[in-house]
């Protein structure tokens, strides 16, 4: 049985990297006593898949992972068992069955919704004035790290939306294997436009967006549930 889990990587765990988070989640799952499926082979590991890696420094408000079980069980029972096995700042928010035949979560993700706060007010002042100027551009070149090194790409099409509201930058950024724009890359690009140093920021990933063929974007958990 495939189960989708929505969880929160809380404020205190902001500085946890993806590998540490994966290891932690594996131990939470092991503690839970759930009938987990393991990979075959010499070094068996839990079948656990994160929809999208979250970088060090960011809080994740609705992160999504898939856990595979050896047998069917009630999702609310699943949720209870897993919830009590997690440390306080890792909260399980929702669990649901993923229909067989659903593609891997990673391939469904197309974007992330982010919130960003610039720490010092002076930089914030300067930066928020750049939002409209940024959006007015048709191309914005930036370096993107890929497996084979750095490559210059146009990030403008990957910035689906960008808005400054009540002291926060709200943005929806593309996040696909082939094309993506990380918040840090966008920030750097904006700072280049404003001719200013890159300030310290805090980041929250609010939720992930998925896309079904031919239809528009939708929150990933909703898309998976409806499936």
């Amino acid at each position, binding site marked *: 049985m495939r189960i989708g889990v929505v969880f929160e990587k809380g404020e205190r*765990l902001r500085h946890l990297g993806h590998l540490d988070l994966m290891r932690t989640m594996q131990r939470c799952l092991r503690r839970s006593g759930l009938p987990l499926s*393991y990979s075959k082979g010499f070094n068996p590991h839990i079948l656990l898949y994160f929809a999208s890696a979250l970088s060090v420094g960011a809080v994740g408000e609705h992160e999504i992972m898939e856990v595979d079980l050896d047998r069917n069980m009630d999702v609310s029972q699943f949720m209870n068992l897993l919830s009590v096995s997690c440390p306080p*700042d890792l909260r399980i928010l929702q669990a649901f069955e993923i229909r067989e035949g659903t593609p891997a979560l990673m391939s469904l993700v197309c974007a992330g919704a982010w919130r960003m706060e610039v720490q010092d007010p002076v930089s914030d002042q300067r930066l928020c004035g750049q939002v409209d100027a940024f959006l007015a551009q048709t191309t914005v070149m930036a370096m993107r790290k890929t497996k084979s090194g750095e490559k210059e790409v146009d990030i403008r099409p990957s910035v689906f939306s960008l808005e400054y509201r009540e002291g926060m930058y709200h943005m929806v950024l593309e996040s696909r294997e082939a094309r993506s724009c990380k918040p840090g890359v966008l920030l750097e690009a904006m700072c280049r436009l404003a001719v200013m140093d890159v300030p310290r920021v805090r980041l929250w990933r609010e939720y992930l967006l998925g896309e079904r063929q031919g239809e528009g974007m939708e929150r990933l958990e909703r898309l998976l549930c409806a499936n």
Partner: protein
Amino acid sequence: MQMDSERIEAMLEKVQKAPRYMGGEMNAVIKPWDQTALHYGFCFPDTYEIGMSHLGMKILYGLVNAQPDWLCERFFMPWTDMIALMKEEGIPLFSLESRKALCQFDMIGFTLQYEMSYTNILAMMDLGGVTLKCAERKRDEPIVVAGGPCAFNPEPLADFVDAFMIGDGEEVTLDVCRTIQAWKTSGQDRQACLKALAEIEGVYVPSLYDVTYHEDGTIAAMRPNCPQAPEKVRKCIVTDLNSAYYPEKIPVPFTEIVHDRIMLEIMRGCTRGCRFCQAGILYRPVRERSLDRLLDLACELEESTGYEDISLSSLSSGDYTCLADLIRGLMKKLQDRRVSVSLPSLRIDSVLKESLEETQKERKTSLTFAPEAGTQRLRDVINKGVTEEDLMDKARDAFEGGWSSVKLYTMIGLPTETEEDLAGIADLGAKVTACYFRVPREKRAKGLRVVVSASSFVPKPFTPFQWCAQDTQSLLREKQEIIKAHIRNIKGVTFNYHESRTSFLEACFSRGDRRLGSVLLYAYQHGCMLDSWSECFQYDVWMQAFEACGLDPAFYANRVRGRDEVFPWDVIDAGVTRAFLWHEWEKARRAEVTPDCRQGCQGCGIQRYPGVCQYANRRRV
């Protein structure tokens, strides 16, 4: 002082390895500060990754927190980048749980695992807003206590630690906490607290003793200066490990630490009597946990942590009476949960071939053997009851069992060592290599790797070698070169050796007296800390410190001590008598071995306490 969480967050954004300082781990204990009557700050004077790997910390943390009325929170030594930030921001050292400053706790306890962590103790107190010197601490500052193996010679830390707990901590810790809790609300001065602590068995309060010296610098006498302080402080011994506290939940770090697994202490103590080994004496007598208790604990811990790995911990796990049953039992119970079992400190003469085969099912890492010395004569001197034949048998078993990587641990600078012994070390490497090639090609794993490593011997208190001089650094370096030259010609063997400067300082502090407090303070104030990290170790500053304080390090490290010299640690009764140790030293010089306690009691002194040692007073065979 209320810690500003926002400012801590801002610091964590800038430091390397922020999870070290983050807290919030699974099974970390959070208790309401205002509703607990005693606040205990547990301090491990090294980094998070090292401290969190330490079993004793987990036992004491669990033990104190198991008392509903008390709270225990953790502190570790921050790395240099964090220290700089904390100073810049004016943020004191804070606990991982509720982020309270060290100075807000009623008591703080340091665990003393190695001498090279002593400057970290000063650094942590300093960062935490605690006055460094006992004599200058104010009424409302924490009572500073310390325990662990190095507490058996507490004197170098006498200026900084109010009270030491000697021996097994499970019971004495509770007594000490109770006393401090009662004192906290009593309105009495610190002195009253220290005197009350001195009355607890197993507690040593250095300020209640006066030391006088001979003209040559050796100690004339060390005497109590108040009626509460005993002539000798007897170490605490937990007689029954089965009923002793053992945590069923331990904090599980988010980030990788050195020993990232469940550690199951299967027994305490060791019956073998290696003469260089301080732990072997300090933890006497040997006590085992029962098979049933261990299997229960293993399951509890596995369920509460989710760890995928469990290791057996003790000085000599191979000697555990039902080792094969234990391993089989663990495998059976934990197999479905895919937990692997590893045996860390295998002695070369004690491993059942069968259990080797059982553990290897899970994984194959490198095997470690500790012959310690290169010739039979020298192994007899140190009473390491291992023969070359044993070593070769075990090496062959290991190679046939599919291992191809072997580490050989040895020491240089042992008493009576000659050039032949050094050549012998290289020779062992050669013979192990030959042993590998004798195993048919299709039966052995590829990629032979033999690492011979040599550490410099440090004479320790409460061992038969406590009277010996440590070799000078130049001699130790010469010896390293000799071995290196021998090993250069052997294919497949690499040679590793440790920096002799660190061993030299270790030798000074392990048998040092309270005058070294000034050296420690000077070194710390001139930038020494994190000394066990080679990138931070500042040997020259240490030498300056000795000079500035008018003390000669060679006096502590390289001097042969007289049979009747008063030692700084004579105030401690470690159970084993000085007469026994001297007798062992004499036998060592004749290269005469002493049998294992299991073959008959050797009369080490522990037998004076009835019912403590299971092997005591048995007829000799």
